[in-house]
């Protein structure tokens, strides 16, 4: 950049930051330095095909499903008026609070032969414990990612573009597919990318449903075969797939801009005739299936336990969960802002690479990531102790391992991509002319960021923070492995009991996760509910 050369130290610090958060990627890619594992021929000739096929089909189904449900719901909610729209607008976010493994357990319970639904249904209910069923479960809890980002994009889209399309004779469907959808594409892609990464990393659901995927395969290779190397190399395949997908998408819209002047969107049109109740019912369905029914099942299971809800121990579970979730949200937000805005202000190849590299924690199965963090923190602790001992000081013991720091660090690596993607999409909608205008007014990059970007990105910032918060509440494997002594969270408790096939006992902490998730979700909905806010942002 001829205009402002970034001080070398600042670039260095940014790279170091990105490096720390690109850790899982590095560990995984580093595995190839040791040469291919001896187990590859075995994996190739036996299970690898199944793993890959199942993962692929799962991704296709979940990706398509969340795309259709998330985008469709967002569109209806933004553009039309129908009974219940205002409630549905935020209720559609509720399934976000439900961890995928929990919904898998509850739906299995609901659909079981001896379960409550089969008693009413006049026909045999389908068996969901298969690949397609797993995709259904993932769609039910993951579509809100797409919904959220798509809705935000639709809300901030230029209403004029849609009006133009109308005057050119484009009907409702055409306006959606030919104008709104392409304009919202970066946001929708960001949403679907999150969904795909969640899908690839999902372990609980596919394991319970007995669907062998790359993610269960990595576990099995690691722990069953005891082959770290092959496991890491498998994981790299998974990351590579994600990388290629995202790269292809970026390439496809290389020259296309999607930033529009932010004019107020057109008035919501009332739906008439059967369309109105149809929309109400259609949009109630995801909420019902992804939240209400599972929650009712959990309530039924937890009814006997309700007294424990206020016990000191239970309150501690809740406060631990909230603490970890808020710290992770703050950390990821700060790191993502630093990386994304520095990339926007002074884009260089190195920073671009750093941006890409940090995105992959999300696609890592949680345990693999956790073990990566365990290694690195162990190495850090070892180094610190040796150094201090060498200098004649007392050894401090484990400073990083087994602390809340380790948990927050791992969760931050895992969820960093949420604010990173969200902010990138947010930045993409800010016209670059605005930056240029501000720069020409003598604004230095930092003041530009603080005075222009930060206020304008309020919504994506808040959205990402709340998403990370809810995701961390649900996070399991990393917390499980890394937490300090006697530190339990709701997710840990729920999972321990559920995986021990004690669903009824797991119901209470599971419900608490849902409840704790509702608050930020409601906040999210409220903050986004204001249309003025949305298009002034």
């Amino acid at each position, binding site marked *: 950049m001829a205009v402002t050369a970034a001080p070398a130290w600042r670039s260095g610090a940014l790279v170091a930051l990105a490096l720390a958060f690109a850790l899982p990627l590095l560990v995984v890619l580093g595995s190839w330095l040791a040469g291919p594992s001896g187990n590859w021929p075995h994996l190739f000739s*036996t299970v690898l095909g199944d793993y890959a096929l199942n993962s692929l089909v799962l991704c296709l189904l979940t990706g398509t499903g969340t795309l259709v449900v998330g985008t469709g719901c967002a569109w209806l909610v933004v553009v039309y008026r129908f009974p219940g729209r205002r409630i549905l607008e935020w209720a559609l976010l509720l399934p976000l609070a439900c961890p995928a493994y929990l919904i898998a357990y509850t739906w299995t319970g609901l659909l079981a032969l001896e379960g409550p639904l089969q008693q009413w249904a006049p026909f045999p209910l389908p068996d969901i414990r298969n690949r397609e069923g797993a995709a259904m479960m993932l769609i039910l809890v993951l579509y809100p990612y797409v919904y959220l980002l798509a809705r935000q994009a639709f809300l901030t889209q230029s209403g004029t573009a849609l009006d133009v399309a109308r005057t050119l004779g484009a009907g409702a469907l055409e306006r959606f597919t030919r104008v709104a959808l392409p304009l919202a594409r970066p946001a929708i892609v960001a949403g679907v990318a999150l969904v795909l990464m969640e899908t690839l990393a999902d372990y609980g659901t596919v394991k319970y449903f007995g669907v062998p995927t790359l993610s269960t395969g990595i576990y099995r290779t690691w722990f069953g075969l005891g082959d770290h190397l092959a496991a890491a190399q498998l994981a790299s395949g998974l990351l590579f797939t994600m990388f290629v997908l995202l790269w292809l998408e970026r390439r496809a819209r290389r020259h296309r801009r999607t930033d529009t002047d932010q004019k107020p969107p057109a008035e919501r049109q009332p739906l008439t005739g059967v369309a109105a109740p149809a929309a109400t019912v259609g949009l109630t369905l995801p909420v019902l299936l992804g939240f209400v029914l599972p929650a009712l099942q959990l309530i039924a299971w937890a009814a006997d336990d309700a007294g424990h809800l206020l016990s000191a121990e239970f309150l501690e579970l809740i406060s631990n969960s909230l603490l970890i979730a808020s710290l992770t949200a703050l950390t990821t937000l700060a790191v993502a802002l630093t990386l994304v805005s520095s990339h926007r202000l002074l884009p260089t190849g190195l920073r671009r690479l750093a941006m890409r590299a940090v995105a992959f924690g999300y696609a890592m199965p949680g345990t693999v990531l956790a073990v990566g963090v365990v290694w690195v923190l162990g190495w850090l602790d070892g180094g610190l102790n040796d150094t201090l001992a060498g200098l004649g000081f007392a050894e401090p013991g484990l400073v990083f391992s087994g602390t809340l720091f380790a948990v927050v660090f791992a969760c931050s690596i895992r969820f960093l991509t949420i604010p990173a993607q969200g902010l990138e999409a947010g930045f993409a909608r800010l016209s670059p002319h605005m930056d240029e205008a501000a720069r020409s007014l003598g604004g230095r990059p930092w003041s530009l960021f603080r005075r222009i970007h930060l206020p304008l990105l309020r919504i994506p910032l808040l959205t990402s923070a709340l998403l990370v918060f809810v995701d961390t509440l649900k996070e399991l494997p990393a917390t499980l492995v890394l937490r300090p002594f006697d530190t339990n969270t709701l997710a840990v408790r729920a999972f321990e009991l559920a995986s021990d096939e004690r669903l009824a006992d797991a119901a209470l902490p599971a419900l608490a996760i849902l409840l704790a998730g509702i608050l930020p979700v409601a906040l999210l909905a409220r903050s986004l509910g204001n249309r003025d806010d949305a298009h002034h942002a």
Partner: protein
Amino acid sequence: MRWTLLTLLSLTLLAGCDQPGPETDNGEAAAKEVNVYSARKEALIQPLLDRFTEKTGTEVNLITGGADALIERMESEGEHSPADLLLTVDAGRLYRARQADLLQKADSETLRNAVPEQYRHPEGYWHGLSVRSRVLVVAPDRVPANAPSRYADLADERWQDRICIRSSNNIYNQSLVASLIAHKGEEATEQWARGLVENMARSPQGGDRDQILAVANDLCDIAVVNTYYLAMMHNSDDQTQREAAEQVALRWPNQNDRGAHVNISGAGVARHAPHPEQARALLEFLVNDESQQWYAEVNNEYPVKEDVAISETLREWGDYKADDLPLVRLGENNDKAVRLMDRAGWQ
């Protein structure tokens, strides 16, 4: 800059968070605590640990988690690891921890007397705490009384599409196959696994309780499950679970030859344990009569120690003959078992 500062601040705070551990406490306090890494779920160990604290005054700090992850954590923490005692729910993981040199010998007369030889490491690196057997559960109205009577029978083509068993990812299935490899060799076991896969009524899914439910609901006729799952269903608060358990019958396999396959939950003292004495004391506490009875009552497991009272459900099932294969062999054969199941197409 505010954000960065805030983050730095909170990170510093977190890193400085006090954790129970040898280095952060003075000597006296350290003498009164013990740190446990447990793959046994909190609910299934905490009451015993509380009892231990009550009796000895030693504080017990606990983290639970997957055994594999805990082992990785101990490994990376190295000599600074605060872990004193590692608890797992299968022998394979104890074997793996020993292989990774994460355990130390804990030999005492109490332990030797309480834990039968096949349920502990020959040199005392780990000891079994409770026993569970992997048994057959059948629909009595659809399966004759005399067959199947052995694991080997599961590969018999007369059970085509009639068997339910969970995924080969499950450690108990891996251990079962590892034991078969030890007894019959790899080739015969692979033949058997292929036959079993042929006979599966559905692709493996769910946990052991789900297999029992499937038998009760006519989805299949035979299931392979751990004993305590069936026992817990018998004693469940949930009526459907109890009813399902009533509808099926337990069948002890291989009673006329080597006996039913068993596995243990067990524990070993960590190699770098800061409190090895307390760790051994806790281990000994876990095999005393009172604790042993607790396992049996609460989780319907079989005590390792002989002559300890067992739960009513287990009593009703009567005595059985257990395979006396040294459990070290399960660990040794584990990766062979996984590879073999991969080849056989056992999902």
